[in-house]
């Protein structure tokens, strides 16, 4: 019995949405205001956003929020970049050389069920807790979607195109760069977008556990100090940056789809 018309008038949808938001923020604020729970347990939205504004200018646990975010984004960019640098060529090569595919896939499948965050102890042991360890954890989170997206993209390409190129004597390298890469681009970009999300998630995990700077570290310090509003301000900041990254990559994905079509090399 899904709605018969499958359509809600825009004005009604807007009203319902605003009512939902009002209810959400009303309950959140009301819990504290009516004394149902203490303000230290659940600070209202006003207190959380005031704290967020304060963190922008005043340092907490040694750094201001922008400085923490800059430290986080630096690690994040390095980890995701490394995943792209390794995952793209490997995925393309696996899509093209069947032997490589048959060799790598079982190893990859064996590691697939180990969550990126379980690499934390080895990452800390091998590369320390400064920059190397966290970058490895972000890499383990972001690498699989890059590899899978690239591999699928390369496998999706019309075999007739490859046959034609081979018949004309095109060398391996040119098949990779001129047929596989352009044909696989939409799938690659989709994989990169998933990778960016998982990388951000892994970064926060890494910072909660081993790192001594960044927005995750700020949240752990606030948790230890019992500063609920600062923890919640951290959640808001992490969510905002995460969605900003997602919005930017969605825009990039749309642009790529316009340029290369839906993929398949046709």
């Amino acid at each position: 019995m899904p709605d018969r018309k499958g359509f809600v008038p825009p004005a009604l949808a807007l009203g319902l949405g605003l009512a939902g938001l009002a209810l959400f923020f009303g309950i959140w604020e009301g819990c504290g205001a009516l004394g149902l729970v203490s303000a230290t347990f659940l600070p209202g939205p006003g207190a959380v956003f005031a704290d967020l504004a304060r963190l922008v200018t005043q340092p907490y646990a040694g750094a201001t929020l922008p400085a923490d975010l800059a430290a986080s984004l630096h690690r994040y960019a390095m980890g995701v970049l490394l995943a792209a640098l390794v995952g793209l060529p490997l995925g393309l090569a696996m899509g093209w050389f069947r032997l490589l595919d048959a060799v790598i896939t079982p190893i990859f499948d064996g590691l697939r069920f180990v969550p990126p965050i379980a690499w934390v102890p080895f990452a800390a042991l091998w590369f320390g807790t400064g920059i190397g360890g966290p970058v490895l954890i972000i890499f383990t989170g972001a690498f699989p979607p890059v590899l899978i997206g690239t591999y699928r993209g390369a496998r999706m390409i019309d075999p007739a195109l490859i046959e034609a190129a081979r018949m004309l004597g095109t060398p391996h390298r040119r098949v990779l760069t001129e047929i596989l890469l352009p044909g696989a681009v939409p799938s690659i970009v989709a994989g990169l977008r998933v990778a960016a999300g998982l990388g951000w998630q892994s970064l926060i995990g890494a910072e909660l556990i081993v790192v001594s700077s960044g927005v995750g570290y700020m949240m752990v310090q606030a948790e230890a100090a019992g500063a609920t509003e600062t923890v919640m301000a951290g959640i808001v900041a992490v969510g905002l940056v995460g969605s900003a990254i997602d919005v930017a990559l969605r825009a990039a994905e749309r642009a790529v789809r316009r340029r290369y079509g839906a993929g398949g090399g046709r």
Partner: protein
Amino acid sequence: MPARRGLIAAASLLGLLALWAWATSPLGPVSPVRFPSPALVAAAFVQIATVGFAGATLPRQVLASLFLVVEGFLIAASTGTALGLAMGVSRRFAAFVNPVFQLLRPIPPLAWIPLAILWLGLGNAAKVLVIWFAAFVPAVINAETGVREIAPHLLEAARMLGTNRLRMLAEIVVPAAAPMIFTGLRLSLQASWTTLIAAELVGSFYGLGHVLNEAQQDIYPGMIFVGMALVGLCGWLTTAILAAIEQHLLGWHASVRRAADA
């Protein structure tokens, strides 16, 4: 061709094993302080299985994590699927809930861990809460999409024949959306493991994340390896059980049959 692929897979894994044994041997380039040799891993496994490590023996550590994942996953899967179905069935309800849902959705599940600890401490309740945050979202999205993608003629036919709302939900909407729901549940299960291990690494008394944390602090590479292998094994096992349930319930469905044949 598949037989040859299997052969290459076996050779690949054996080759990796040989490379590992050689690299961590006294002749190899890798120091056992950095990465354990197979013998050290075996010794660590024997230790946790017999004497125990980080406060308990193997079964207790595994069951502590497994139990929490199953508990958190079941709560998240049932509440998430119910909300997703409701959002798929009623566009008005979806319009009401969606803005709040979209507001909370971009928050990485791991970011809830400090708040959960503040609210509920280091015990099991905080872990179930963060698993719920992580596993809820994929269950909602896929259940809603599943309902939205039901072929309209199925609904129209049932409506024309005067099927009442309850039968329509039980006999058309849920079965037709089920493959998408299971896709969401697979993602939810994966998210459950990731979040639980992260939460246990941040602070816990038992569980595989606790084993990993103690092994890290003791600089005990053999036990780190054992902990990671156990996490991977548990993740694989629960995923296989979910797939078996899907196959059992939805064996009739065309998309599942195709997947089973492939």
